């Protein structure tokens, strides 16, 4: 039976568990319980250790920066708190590299603490939190100077001691538990908040390029032990960005708890995770072909919890607590899966672990479609701009239309998993590099560089500091977020070269823009992916870009940038308001048309060349008309009539040119693409009756291809490859044998029918449409064609009959499964990656919200943007 190593499997699940637990715990944000802000967190101490000399860093970011208490006899642990009762030093064992590195790069910081003061007389300032070496060398210190909080922050605009410091108002400290937060933005704006309220603002100019990388992180004293602070610590956190006022309020409202960060899952949860990450995919892959609701061989349906627990014809098939029972015995003896390769040793080990751990079954239903892309679940791919996104980004950023040249120079993006914006497939080759360079040159050549720079600085100065300001402002716009000091220096260096070559201000700007247009932050949608493998809230600028690329396929506009600058995108209501504003922009419509074009692969039409002898009416113009029909229909139903997305299946209208109308057998009206009412036109109506979709069946109007299209694209169904001993070449039609007859024979065949029953009847209703979408009552042999049939919705036990094509369309339009599938498709396009089981709970919530609000494309996109799939980003451990 092979080796069984349950502990090994449990270990490998830990990473997945972290992600899953987090996903399940916070699907769409829970507004009732304030949660601490995690975005930008670098170090976090919640003093939950309880005893000992070590205070653990629970941020989960990078290598933990744990702190050691020099003299444990001088402190007292209590529940989630550490009281420093007499002077001692608490410090990291080595330099706080992760803090220094991150903050030097971001040029922004937040230092936050929940503390209870021992007295209002200590000073020096007495060190509450410090990153320093002695009384005159520091990167920062948050301290107590009698009745005020005092923050010293080293920057190029202050001295090595962080002087002048920033202080809270007089008598702002009291002998009780207090929340203090100091924030400093890249612009230099520094603020102190006490108990969630801003109490002071001043400027700490310059950057953090002069920070010393050797300092240790200290609590309760200076490194030289001559600035002791006494009191109780409840929480200390450091962020590499300035939290907004809203975020500080949120942390204050969340209280002293750090939340569930770093907690190990309990046994029951681990069992659930094991089922969801290993067992359900395994059943989906190996068992449900025969043991789902539709077939339930041996009376066993493993796709539904209640049925699976009830067992099969011979009773229960498994019991929690031991590897025994019908299911285990059949698997262990390689009797199941029947007529298929046996399970691997690892798979058997997983089943055994699951059974022995209690056979938890947390899902009501196993949906095989959720596990199709399990292989992608852990990968976090940076997204390169697609060709369309590049064009729109250049247009929005600098006002130059580069569409024609881009399509000539940049290689086309290839489809993967149904869309060409799938991040893992957006690689680059030499042609891309050449094209980005050449396009940048063309763009800059068409710009008025001086005028463009004027948007960011009126100075037109080659002075180094003023150029730095220009680069910072212009770069923030072009690169979709603030630049750090190093980036500013690098781009400013181009200006130095230009000046050295005798160039002027405008020329310097041109070359800087040319470099920025080729930079990774322009070509890719860069995000901070570092973390512990669990999702983290996207920062303000990352979220702004996520929103704009999802809605517009382009960069944030000024209003969205302003919202990010103000930290407003941490506020769900303000995010929702931005989405409402953005939905009114025509770019949203264009982006949605890109979606439908990709989803239905409309680009395929230009390549079709049906047999000219059979379809003499086919030509490139007719193909183009079909594409335009579908796009116009989509725009009408979704945007003009604002109908639910599912109405695409049975809306009784279409758009056609006279040429297409004639092809469809409609009476041509007008001389261009015009709307036709199909209420009284039998057979045609809805997107499945468009030539653009019907041609998927090829010259022979294959029921297999059409049925599979409906199954995959509308029902999110899965089906296996042809089983053994079947000739996959269909016999030709002849007098007395239509495509329907051939398909019915396949469905009735004992070998083929197991799978074909799941999809071919879906295409029965389309038999009257030939390979190029024309309508006929009889085929070339005179056979009467039919459009009645049945639909077996994935997961259902019984098929539903339909009498006509129109009834099929109505069934599909009304089907919850179809609506859910549309949500999955739009969500996949929005995220630029295939979805997996880990995403399923959030997608279900998105769907629920979108349907509740009306089920329109706008409702759906809004729900997607507001969901954790967009609000939070996936991270990679030790990234």
């Amino acid at each position, binding site marked *: 039976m092979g080796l069984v190593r349950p502990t090994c499997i449990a270990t490998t699940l830990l990473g997945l568990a972290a992600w899953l637990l987090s996903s399940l715990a916070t699907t769409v944000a829970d507004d009732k319980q304030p949660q601490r802000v995690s975005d930008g967190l670098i170090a976090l101490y919640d003093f939950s250790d309880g005893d000992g000399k070590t205070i653990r860093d629970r941020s989960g970011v990078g290598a933990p920066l744990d702190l050691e208490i020099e003299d444990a006899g001088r402190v007292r642990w209590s529940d989630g708190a550490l009281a420093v009762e007499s002077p001692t030093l608490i410090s990291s064992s080595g330099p706080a590299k992760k803090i220094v590195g991150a903050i030097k790069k971001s040029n922004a910081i937040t230092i936050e603490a929940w503390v209870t003061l021992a007295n209002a007389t200590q000073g020096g300032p007495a060190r509450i939190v410090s990153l320093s070496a002695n009384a005159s060398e520091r990167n920062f210190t948050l301290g107590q100077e009698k009745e005020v909080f005092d923050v010293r922050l080293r920057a190029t605009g202050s001295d090595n001691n962080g002087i002048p410091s920033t202080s809270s108002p007089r008598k702002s400290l009291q002998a009780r538990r207090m929340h203090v937060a100091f924030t400093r933005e890249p612009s230099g704006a520094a603020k102190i908040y006490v108990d969630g309220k801003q109490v002071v603002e001043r400027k700490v100019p310059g950057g953090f390029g002069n920070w010393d990388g050797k300092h240790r992180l200290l609590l309760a004293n200076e490194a030289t032990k001559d600035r002791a602070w006494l009191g109780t610590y409840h929480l200390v956190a450091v962020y590499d960005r300035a939290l907004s006022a809203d975020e500080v309020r949120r942390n204050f409202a969340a209280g002293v708890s750090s939340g569930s960060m770093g907690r190990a899952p309990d046994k029951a949860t681990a069992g659930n995770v094991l089922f969801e990450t290993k067992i359900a995919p395994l059943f989906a892959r190996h068992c449900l072909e025969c043991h789902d609701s539709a077939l339930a061989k041996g009376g066993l349906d493993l796709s539904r919890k209640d049925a699976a627990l009830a067992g099969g014809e011979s009773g229960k098939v498994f019991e929690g607590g031991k590897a025994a029972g019908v299911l285990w015995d059949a698997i262990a003896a390689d009797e199941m899966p029947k007529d298929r390769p046996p399970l691997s040793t690892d798979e058997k080990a997983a089943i055994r672990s699951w059974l022995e751990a209690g056979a938890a079954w947390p899902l009501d239903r196993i949906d095989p479609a959720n596990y199709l892309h399990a292989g992608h679940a852990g990968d976090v791919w940076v997204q390169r701009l697609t060709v369309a996104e590049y064009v729109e980004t250049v247009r929005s950023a600098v006002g130059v239309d580069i569409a024609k040249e881009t399509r000539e120079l940049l290689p086309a993006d290839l489809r993967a998993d149904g869309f060409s914006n799938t991040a893992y497939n957006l690689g680059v080759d030499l042609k891309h590099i*050449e094209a980005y360079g050449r396009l940048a040159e063309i763009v800059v050549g068409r710009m008025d560089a001086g005028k463009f720079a004027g948007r960011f600085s009126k100075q037109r100065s080659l002075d180094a500091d003023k150029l730095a300001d220009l680069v910072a402002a212009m770069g923030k716009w072009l690169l979709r977020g603030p630049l750090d000091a190093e980036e500013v220096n690098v781009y400013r260096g181009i200006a130095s070269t230009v000046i050295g070559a005798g160039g002027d201000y405008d020329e310097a700007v041109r070359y800087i823009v040319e470099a920025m247009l080729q930079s990774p932050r322009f070509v890719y949608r860069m995000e901070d992916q570092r973390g512990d493998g669990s999702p983290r809230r996207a920062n303000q600028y990352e979220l702004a870009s996520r929103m704009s690329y999802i809605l517009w396929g382009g960069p944030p506009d000024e209003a969205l940038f302003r919202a990010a600058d103000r930290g407003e995108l941490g506020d769900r209501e303000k995010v929702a308001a931005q989405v409402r504003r953005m939905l009114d922009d025509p770019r949203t419509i264009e982006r949605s048309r890109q979606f439908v074009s990709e989803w239905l692969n409309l680009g395929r039409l230009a390549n079709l060349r049906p047999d000219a002898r059979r379809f003499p009416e086919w030509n490139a113009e007719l193909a183009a008309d079909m594409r335009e029909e579908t796009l116009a229909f989509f725009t009408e139903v979704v945007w003009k009539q604002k109908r639910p997305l599912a109405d695409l299946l049975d809306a009784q209208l279409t758009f056609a040119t006279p040429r297409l109308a004639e092809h469809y057998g409609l009476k041509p009206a007008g001389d261009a693409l015009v709307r036709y009412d199909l209420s009284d036109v039998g057979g045609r109506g809805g997107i499945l009756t468009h030539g653009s979709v019907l041609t998927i069946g090829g010259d022979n109007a294959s029921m297999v291809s059409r049925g599979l299209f409906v199954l995959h694209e509308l029902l999110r169904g899965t089906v296996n490859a042809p089983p053994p001993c079947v*000739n996959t070449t269909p016999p030709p039609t002849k007098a007395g044998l239509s495509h329907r007859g051939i398909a019915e024979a396949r469905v009735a065949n004992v070998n083929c029918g197991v799978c074909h029953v799941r999809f071919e009847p879906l295409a029965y209703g389309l038999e009257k449409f030939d390979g190029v979408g024309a309508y006929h009552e009889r085929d070339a042999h005179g056979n009467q064609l039919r459009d009645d049939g049945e639909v077996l919705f994935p997961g259902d036990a019984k098929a539903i009959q339909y009498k006509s094509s129109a009834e099929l369309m109505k069934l599909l339009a009304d089907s919850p499964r179809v609506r859910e599938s549309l949500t999955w498709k739009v969500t996949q396009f929005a995220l630029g990656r295939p979805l997996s089981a880990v995403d399923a709970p959030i997608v279900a919530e998105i769907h629920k919200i979108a349907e509740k609000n009306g089920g329109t494309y706008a409702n759906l996109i809004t729900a997607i943007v507001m969901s954790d799939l967009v609000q939070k980003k996936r991270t990679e451990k030790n*990234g």
Partner: protein
Amino acid sequence: MTSRAITRRTAIKGLGGVTIGLPFLEEMLRPSLSLAASKSAVEAKAAVPVRAFNVFFGLGIPAPLQKEGFDGVLEPLKPLGEKLLIMRGVDHVRCDEKGINAHYDGASAAFTAEPPQGEAKAGGPSIDQMIRRAHYPDGLPPGMVPTLVAGTFFRRSRLSRYVHSFNPDGTVAATMQEKPRAVFERVFGTVAAENDSDDARRRRLRRSVLDTVLDQYKFYTGPNSPLGATSKARVAEHLERIREFEQRAFAVKVDGTAAPDLPRESKLLHGGAADPGGEGIDITLEELSAEWRLLAELYALAIQTDRTRFGSITFLAAGERIRLTGKYEYNGRNVFEFDDAGQRKKSGSQACSHEWWHDFDEKKKNEQLRAHAHMKLREVAYFLSLLDGKDAVDANGKTILDNALLTISTESGDGRHNDVRRELTGVFHAISGAGGRFKTGQIVDVNAEGLDVYNTMLSAMGVSGRLGPGKRKMAEVGAIRV
């Protein structure tokens, strides 16, 4: 057919007026100079680089036909028989994935021995990329094409049907070049050359821009990058391409009088147009062969001139759908008259040669399938022979075919889709000697899993990494090693 094969000699003779990278020139000239300079044996040995290429042809050779050896469809490989090891009984059964098209499964398995991950990713790295990373951990010499992927094919619904070089994460190792001219440009460069301009100032400034861009990409691949490992690898590829661009864009101009012939524009369909909804295309044997041979010559020239050391080349995709016509002759002998549509008496996809594989029956003549398979091996042999001629002699006096690892394979051991086990069992494989590492001049029945065969090859090539599940115990296939 091409009227004149492109060779290293004709290319060198014709150089001029075209900007090419410095390494290209050096590498092109080095072999001939080295002979004259009578380098020491040690130097000569050192001058033979490690190279590995995957050669793929679509649809495969049913295992029963392989048994006929050079008397059957393998005949075109006979002239190269002493330099090849033909392996029968290589089994990729683990790669046959339920729910995935078997042509695609088999094509993904070729050179990786792993099942695919979805539509556009292989299940792991290909052999050539494993060897590349092991022998050139810091990258290939500047200006060299790190991986060259090219092919003549018309079916493209899934990527592994036609691409056969994959990174460790299963993504494609390089963009497919499907036109001869694209191969020419990719290898010999028509990058908008700075030295076309006499404006030295402009060059200097553009250089500054490129340096800045390069610096930014370096940051995103470095230790302080905010990216995770997966994304870093993607940006690292981008960085590598920029470095290559840098080499080419700032190369020197070569003096000369006559420019080498730029390959003619391809007249065949490419891109999406080449695959009209999976229905197949009409093509003559002459069109197909001429396009392929031009592409093969350019690819071979890239190897001969040491512009590339790793990659893959594809002659017809997995599950290819073409309706071929034309008289097929071999060595002056009429072999067959191709007319797929006419012989199948059908249209569209049902008239394509692909269907002969589905109809295979070892008790019958399988005349059409035999002719197609024979023709495919003729074209594969054409490519291999380009690496075995006088233009392909390395510094050690042996040919590239002797020194490099050429792995030739396909998608299926049986095209019928009627037996799960048989379909990916007995998939045709042949390898070259790789500098004496493998036996040649034999046809052996290895009867082993592809993973073991490939891992044995990797072991012989001095690669410590292995394909497949980490804890799987490898079974050395001693029959292939010297």
